[in-house]
């Protein structure tokens, strides 16, 4: 590691700009990977939806559209707070960054809590096709397929959001300490990209499952 104008540069890089571009490209490639991960299950969903349009629509009528919409709003707001946090951290405004990161984490947790509430309601209604649980949905069988896809897709998304929240929490602590501000700025940027990605995935999940 050699310092250059207050920026720590790792051995393999020549300049700070090169290092930053490498980080960015790495993150974008990672997001491309993630996009294809979700792409696989979306392709499955679309295929089945074309095969069983009416049954899927009937099953989707059991979704809690209100809670889903609320959650969409929560996530969109969190994207805004992340973007602002990135903006502020670049200007070296530590306290304001902390506030916005805190808000982001809170919104992420709120989303997960609402999601958990939804799952609980569905569990009470007997809409969870898990072994050992009573499945009380009376439509034709592909309806259960809809629920299978619903739990898989929202579950995978919630898992990603959980990772994103944990990542933000770590970065919150790092910004709190404020040891190497230039690195913290990069970290907020990278975590922010990931956060936006998780939000965007939701923007596909939500209409696909709730608004059919």
């Amino acid at each position: 590691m050699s310092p250059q104008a207050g920026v720590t540069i790792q051995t393999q890089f020549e300049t700070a700009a090169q290092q930053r571009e490498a980080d960015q490209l790495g993150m974008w490639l990672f997001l491309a990977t993630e996009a294809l991960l979700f792409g696989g299950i979306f392709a499955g969903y679309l295929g089945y939806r074309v095969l069983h349009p009416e049954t899927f629509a009937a099953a989707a009528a059991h979704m809690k559209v209100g809670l889903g919409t609320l959650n969409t709003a929560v996530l969109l707001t969190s994207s805004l707070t992340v973007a602002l946090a990135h903006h502020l951290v670049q200007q070296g405004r530590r306290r304001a960054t902390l506030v916005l990161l805190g808000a982001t984490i809170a919104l992420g947790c709120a989303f997960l809590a609402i999601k958990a509430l939804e799952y609980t309601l569905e569990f009470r209604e007997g809409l969870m096709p898990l072994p050992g649980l009573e499945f009380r949905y009376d439509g034709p069988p592909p309806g259960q397929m809809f629920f299978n896809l619903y739990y898989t897709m929202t579950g995978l998304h919630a898992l990603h959001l959980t990772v994103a929240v944990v990542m933000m929490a770590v970065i919150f602590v790092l910004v709190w300490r404020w040891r190497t501000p230039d690195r913290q700025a990069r970290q907020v940027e990278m975590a922010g990209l990931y956060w936006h990605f998780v939000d965007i995935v939701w923007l596909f999940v939500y209409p696909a499952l709730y608004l059919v």
Partner: protein
Amino acid sequence: MSTTASPPLGRRLDTRAAAAGRNYLNESTSLRSWLLTTDHKRIAWLYLASITFFFFIGSLAALLIRLELITPAGDLVDSDTYNKLFSLHGIIMVWFFLVPSIPTTLGNFLLPLMIGARDVAFPRLNLLSWYIYTLGGLFTLTATLAGGVDTGWTFYTPYSSMFSNTAVVMAATGVFVVGFSSILTGLNFMVTVHKLRAPGLTWFRLPIMVWTLYATSLIMVLATPVLSISLLLIVLERVFGIGIFDPALGGDPLLFQHLFWFYSHPAVYIMILPGMGVVSEIIPCFARRPLFGYRAVALASLGIALFGFLVWGHHMFVSGQSLYAGAVFSLFSFLVAVPSAIKVFNWTATLYQGRIHLTGPMLYALSFVGLFTLGGLTGLFLATLALDVHLHDTYFVTAHFHYIMVGGMVTAYFGGLQFWWPKMTGRMYSEIWAVIAAITLFIGFNLTFFPQYLLGIAGMPRRYHSYPEAFQLLHVASSAGAVLLAVGYLLPAIYLPASLRWGRRVDNPWGALGLEWTAADTPPIKHNFHQTPVVTGPPYGYRNDAEPA
């Protein structure tokens, strides 16, 4: 990478290596310094050790398969065990040996050296990839010890999700985990090539090895996640009963095949592109000529990577996909062979009027060209809709992909390992033995797999442990070939390690011209270069006239 005449072949430049003293191997020697290393060259060795281990296990399974098939009756193992043997063989060879083989060993070692960088872009991530690989390997070994898995390497549903009573979850988890190792390696390589090239090293000055590693990485990053999700869905179905492929719920098992081959067809190019890279380095060096049609070869690598995403349906011609889909996939499969053919023509043209030196690595490279061509051509047979109805799931398919993956990729891997062995170790191995090993391998390989084409045409289906007597002669020939092939693989496992002790010290025994040879010590120092090299010309500046006296 210069325009001066190539140094003569076989020149012994002992001076630099001896004078330098310190290198990446001896600057620290504790076990800890190896297990926590972030040096791409040491990580290459970690991978080399691990994949050799898995190659050995995979080969043992293959040996048992060939033993069973010597007689028509299923007498050595019962059919259940046989199913587990070929599944284990496929899973280990594909994901724990072939996919990582060249990229993680030679690729890791060479990529930064070839582009004049001090390391990959994310050295710690590189080490993490190895640990993830190891974790995935442990899952797979556990699955094996827990009784094995019998779904074949393709994990087809609904058998894998609803019916098999074997350790499917454990095995799928192993493959799922090792996928992330591939993804991270691919990501790392791509960023490295984009961002860490030395001054003057433009894209069209990159050696083909770098182009092919780049193309491979692209596939790793874009295809592997689709495999991950398909395996995840199988695991969900088995563990939680969340059946996405369950026909009773209106699910379609064909969906799994689509997802699986969307990964696995591109992934077969993961298992050949790096081999193409290796021979593109070896052939110019020992023909003493620049690579013919450099740009075409470079772009063909990307072409293969991209078009490879459009042909997956050729694995499902008889699985009930629509005839129109079949016709389109058939057409695309013909087209995807074009860039591969371009490469073969260019390698051959490079030889024309070259001064050909039949060294060990060169023999491996020439074997590659021949075997790959045969494998690729038979791919075209299979891509022909009507013909595939007859050939699908026969030994013809088995022979097709073994010609490419084993005859091609594994041969290139061995050739590359020996070509760069002096660079990696500073020692020269026994060339005579290398020549013997390469020839044994070529004969053994053809004896093993050529009969399988004939078996397939005659109608012998794959994945059966007993067969009608009419097929015995060809099966015996194949098993005999397998023994010879095993000898061909075991020889390097003896003379390469032996060279570490008895081999003479060398610097650049081939007079090769890549940056890794001309700008770095042998073995290289910790961060590769004493000063960042500046590149002023195209690669492969070999010349015919600088010949040994």
